[in-house]
């Protein structure tokens, strides 16, 4: 298949692996930030091919996983309001909040529908003019522009029953927060691919400059990731960390100007609550005052029970890269995809789900 098979070519992969083995002389600790990368690495078995000098940790780049319990509780409370249709990406359905999940809320007769894009949510709003349609706006810079576009479109068309629960988060600030925590001693970061399509590579410049950590923006196919690892190892071995793009077919240094402008028109930077990390200043987005009538948090009043965290779940540590799913006592025993305790076991991009689904250990 075009644009897929080329990036899974065995012979090319072998060549890149042998080059990595040649140049890697010292222990090197890399983090793949993005959940999409984690899945691709586990699914192709890529870790098994790397030399023992190269260690790869999984990062917090799974939007479902980093959504705080408090925010999931909000989504569930909104779904239980009368005459409300909640629309969401499918991954959110099974994520346990403090007391329940959207899936359980749906079984208890809340009207919750899975959509693949904000366009689907808008269509549901057009088709159901007497009901309020709320889109659960999770995601990083990748999804934020389409959420912004949907709000502008609703305004242009005069769709009055469309709302967004804005839970958008930003990647560079959380990378900074992780580096500031200093728990990991990273040498390099495999930077997110789709996020960088939007924001470009410039926003990562502070990482090599201030922290001496190498950065390479990577695509999602096994060869993309192998190439990025090679570039990172080369940077680290040379002692000159910088920001490079391996995912050139998708990412330009300056990003996507149109998308960035859309985001800026509709959203302003705000603090965000990250599971396992806590509230991080300037790491999220909120809807600007001008568009506040689309903001579900402004439009509806809900009462929430106190937030609870699941006992024994180490999703937070896993999201910070401090622990792996294999370190969790609940993994595979109590916590399975059928009965997930934490979000990392739910999301298709979650580390625990990837380790569960594809691991050979």
């Amino acid at each position, binding site marked *: 298949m075009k644009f897929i098979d080329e990036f899974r070519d*065995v012979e090319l992969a072998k060549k890149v692996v042998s080059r990595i083995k040649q140049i890697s002389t010292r222990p090197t600790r890399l983090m793949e930030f993005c959940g999409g990368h984690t899945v691709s690495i586990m699914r192709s078995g890529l870790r*098994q091919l790397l030399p023992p000098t190269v260690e790869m940790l999984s990062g917090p780049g799974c939007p479902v996983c980093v959504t705080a319990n408090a925010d999931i509780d909000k989504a569930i409370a909104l779904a239980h309001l009368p005459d409300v249709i909640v629309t969401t990406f499918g991954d959110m359905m099974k994520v346990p909040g403090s007391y329940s999940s959207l899936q359980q809320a749906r079984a208890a007769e809340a009207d919750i529908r899975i959509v693949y894009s904000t366009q*689907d949510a808008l269509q549901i709003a057009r088709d159901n003019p007497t009901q309020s349609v709320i889109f659960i706006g999770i995601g990083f810079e990748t999804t934020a522009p389409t959420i912004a576009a949907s709000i502008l479109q609703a305004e242009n068309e005069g769709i009055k029953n469309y709302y967004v629960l804005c839970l958008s988060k930003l990647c560079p600030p959380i990378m900074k927060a992780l580096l500031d925590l200093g728990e990991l001693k990273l040498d390099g970061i495999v930077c997110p691919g789709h996020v960088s399509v939007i924001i470009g590579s410039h926003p990562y410049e502070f990482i090599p400059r201030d922290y001496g950590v190498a950065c390479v923006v990577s695509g999602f196919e096994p060869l993309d990731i192998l190439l990025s690892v090679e570039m990172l190892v080369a940077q680290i071995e040379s002692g000159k960390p910088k920001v490079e793009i391996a995912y050139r077919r998708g990412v330009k240094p300056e990003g996507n100007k149109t998308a960035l402008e859309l985001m800026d028109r509709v959203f302003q930077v705000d603090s965000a609550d990250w599971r396992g990390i806590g509230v991080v200043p300037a790491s999220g987005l909120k809807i600007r005052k001008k568009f506040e009538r689309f903001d579900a948090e402004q439009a509806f009043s809900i009462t929430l029970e106190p937030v609870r965290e699941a006992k024994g779940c180490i999703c937070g540590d896993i999201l910070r890269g401090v622990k792996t799913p294999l370190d969790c006592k609940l993994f595979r025993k109590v916590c399975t*995809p*059928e009965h997930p305790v934490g979000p990392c076991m739910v999301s298709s991009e979650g580390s625990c789900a990837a380790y569960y*689904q594809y691991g*050979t250990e």
Partner: protein
Amino acid sequence: MDDETILLAHGSGSRLSHELIEKNFLPILTNPLLAKLDDSAVFDLSGRLAFTTDSYVVSPIFFPGGDIGKLAVCGTVNDLSMSGSVPLYLSLSLIIEEGLTLSELKKVVSSVKAAAEEAGVNIVTGDTKVVNRGSADKLFINTSGIGIIPEGIDISGANAKVGDKIILSGTIGDHGIAVMSQREGLKFSVPVQSDCAPLNKLVSDMLKTSLKINCLRDPTRGGLATTLNEFARQSQVGISIEEEKIPAREGVRAACELLGFDPLYVANEGKLVAIVAPSDAGKILAKMKRNKYGTDAAIIGEVTDAHKGKVIMKTRLGASRIVDMLSGELLPRIC
């Protein structure tokens, strides 16, 4: 009038009910056993029998490559075939949501007829109920079926033996993606048709070639991965497969990339997996390739005594990984 809609009264046992059956079912599905219209179909059978039932709730009821009628016949014919039996008679029960149009119903019944004819089975008894709007989704169908198992056949998911070869009859994921592409709120255009087909003749070709077929199953919901895991657990053996050898259409792979699915878990309605003795694998495969439902058949792996109860796949990159069962819902209501 074809634009007429089905009303609750059509299911009430009244004159309307009789009219519905006499005009729309009997002439199309005609056979002597059905035409008697007694409370049960009465017939003679002897030998070891296979008996199965399945309900079909696919949404939408029409999809590229088939509809709920074709699916209801093929699904039950295939379940019978996977025990090695020769399917003979089917029942057909419809639960109709009021408001279904008569033309839609006729289209479905015609598909039932076409599929039954191709498979060489008769619909010998049936039932129709109409329920309030909202109590069903357009049309639900249940079919049950009876078949006879010829002498000398012993097929079960528990029969896989170390060294056996695993044969897959063709490309995976076609049905799931074809249905998915039509779902409301998710319409996308892929050149993929459902593979929905009766496999009884393919199975009888295989059994004529060799009786050393130990396991047979059609990988429907849960896909190939789930079927292989069932074999591994039931037979207490390990299963090793190679990613490279598993056929999948480009459109299916592309749609899976887009939606974040793994084709290994996507449903099929016209494929089978056979676990066969290594000595006969070559000739069984050759025979399958000559049947129109087996042209893309391939040996995709083998049964081992390592990693008992688990399925391990060699990836394209040469690494290996677990292939677990499907967890939770992937594509709701695809069959």
